[in-house]
């Protein structure tokens, strides 16, 4: 089956990203396809490479990045939500005159159209959040 995943909550505060990660991993292990993972609302916070959890805890961002690398996942961070919350890549830094970036290179910033397209193209859109 072709899945897309929407994550609406930030890391650590909320289990949504953990559950989504486990769902994605299990689906891939079963041979399903993940068309896209879309990060929305505070979910965009799952993409900052500056995240530094205590050493004995999971690194939610790196975990997504590694899964993305391994399976060549399309992991999209909503641009409007990212701008509000200070998630920045090179393009956004230049466009908005910011002095730094923080996005992990496995993620990409794009528009909400990517979410609609994912919903239309996939057999199921699975939403994680409150």
């Amino acid at each position, binding site marked *: 089956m072709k899945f897309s995943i*929407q994550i*609406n909550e930030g890391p650590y505060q909320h289990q949504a990203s953990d559950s989504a990660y486990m769902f994605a991993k299990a689906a891939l292990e079963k041979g399903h396809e993940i068309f896209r993972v879309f990060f*929305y*609302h505070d979910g965009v916070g799952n993409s900052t490479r500056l995240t530094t959890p205590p050493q004995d805890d999971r690194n939610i961002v790196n975990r997504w990045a590694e899964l993305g690398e391994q399976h060549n996942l399309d992991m999209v961070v909503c641009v*409007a*939500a990212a701008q*509000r919350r200070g998630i920045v890549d090179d393009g956004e830094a230049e466009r908005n005159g910011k002095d730094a970036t923080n996005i992990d290179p496995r993620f990409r910033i794009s*528009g*909400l*159209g990517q*979410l*609609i*397209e994912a*919903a*239309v*193209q996939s057999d199921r*859109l699975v*939403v994680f*959040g409150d």
Partner: protein
Amino acid sequence: MSESIKKLMYLNRRAPYGTIYAWESLEVVLIGAAFEQDVSLAFVDDGVYQIVKGQDTAEVGMKNFSPTYFALGGYEVTKLYVEKESLEERGLTIDDLMPLTWEDEDDDWAEKDSIRLVSREELAEVMAGQDVVFSF
């Protein structure tokens, strides 16, 4: 971009200003309108407060985005399901909601109500008939 038309429902469950879900849901609806899918919105639980008329956010220092709902008709978003029980539980009636309408080009641009008052049971049926439910 899409080879088929899907039935997409945006399910709005939360009050408009305590969290950003309502506003960011509306942003998805507006962007999604360009995809020419079969779109509907549903308002349940505290989500019914999103379309209450006379919203004034001056005191909380947030943008009052409620006028944006009036734009939906122009984007061909014409089906707004409102759950009757959610209104009643909050002491509201349809008269407390904004008079949201759309113009039907197949009926000489007649102005028609966008809001469809449905029972919890009826809404469950409408939801079951969707291809995608975006939950906000």
